[in-house]
């Protein structure tokens, strides 16, 4: 089991090195013509004005919020899904399904609430 994750770590390190290789090549090969106008950000031709940081709008946050809370639900459903068939063989399938159904219904009410209150609207 440790070996699998050793492969993951080595893959990450080798990935960063291999992805960095072309960047290093470009650093070595590419020409450098430094003049300030080139570094201006591209605002489709218009001279950039003001700071880049977005003005305040809440809907991005609402979607991230609903995402986090529904992603957390995955913690409970993944082990349930893996172990579901074993419980069926032990004749406990109905009981286990009822547990998960209760879990999903409660969270479904959360989604319904967000839907009715318009938190999922983009406008």
């Amino acid at each position: 089991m440790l070996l699998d994750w050793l492969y993951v770590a080595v893959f990450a390190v080798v990935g960063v090195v291999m992805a960095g290789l072309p960047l290093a090549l470009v650093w070595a090969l590419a020409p450098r013509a430094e003049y300030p106008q080139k570094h201006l950000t591209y605002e489709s031709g218009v001279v950039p004005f003001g700071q880049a940081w977005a003005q305040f709008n809440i809907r991005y946050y609402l979607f991230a919020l609903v995402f986090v809370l529904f992603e957390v639900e995955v913690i409970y459903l993944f082990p349930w899904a893996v172990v579901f068939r074993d419980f069926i063989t032990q004749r406990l399938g109905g009981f286990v399904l009822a547990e998960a159904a209760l879990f999903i219904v409660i969270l479904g009410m959360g989604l319904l609430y967000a839907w009715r209150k318009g938190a999922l609207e983009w406008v």
Partner: protein
Amino acid sequence: MGELGAFIILALVTLLPAAAVVTSRNLVRAAMSLVPSFLGVAGLFVLLQAEFVAGIQILIYAGAIAVLILFVIMLTAGGTGTAVRQANEQRVVGGLAAAALTAALLALLLRTAWPLAAGSLPRANVAAVGSAFLTTFVLAFEISSVVLLVSLVGALVIARRER
């Protein structure tokens, strides 16, 4: 020998970015260095044979909570935090207090003789966690959905201006 080397690397990968999170002046860089710290902790979980918890740590912490924190930082113009002083004036006192607590914790944790038990965790720990959730910890399983619902409703009410 290998496991100790892996442990040291992962401990560094956890602690150094965590130090960067609490001391960095640029807020988005602080949030960015939060991600390797979470991945380091996930690595420690793997060394502790807690594979499912490591997967969930990567998925929820590094993939969802870090994204939420990045969103809020960028939305509240925290990104411009570079110009604003980040640490408040009680930096020295805070540092001392934190160091004192850490020293006390270390003394307490390292000196007590924990009742170590031999044996190793079940290999397929997703199935083991699943059956634990569905049999012995059913209450935690169901209460968590209620907690999620309550926090979703609460967060939506707080964040949105009532129209």
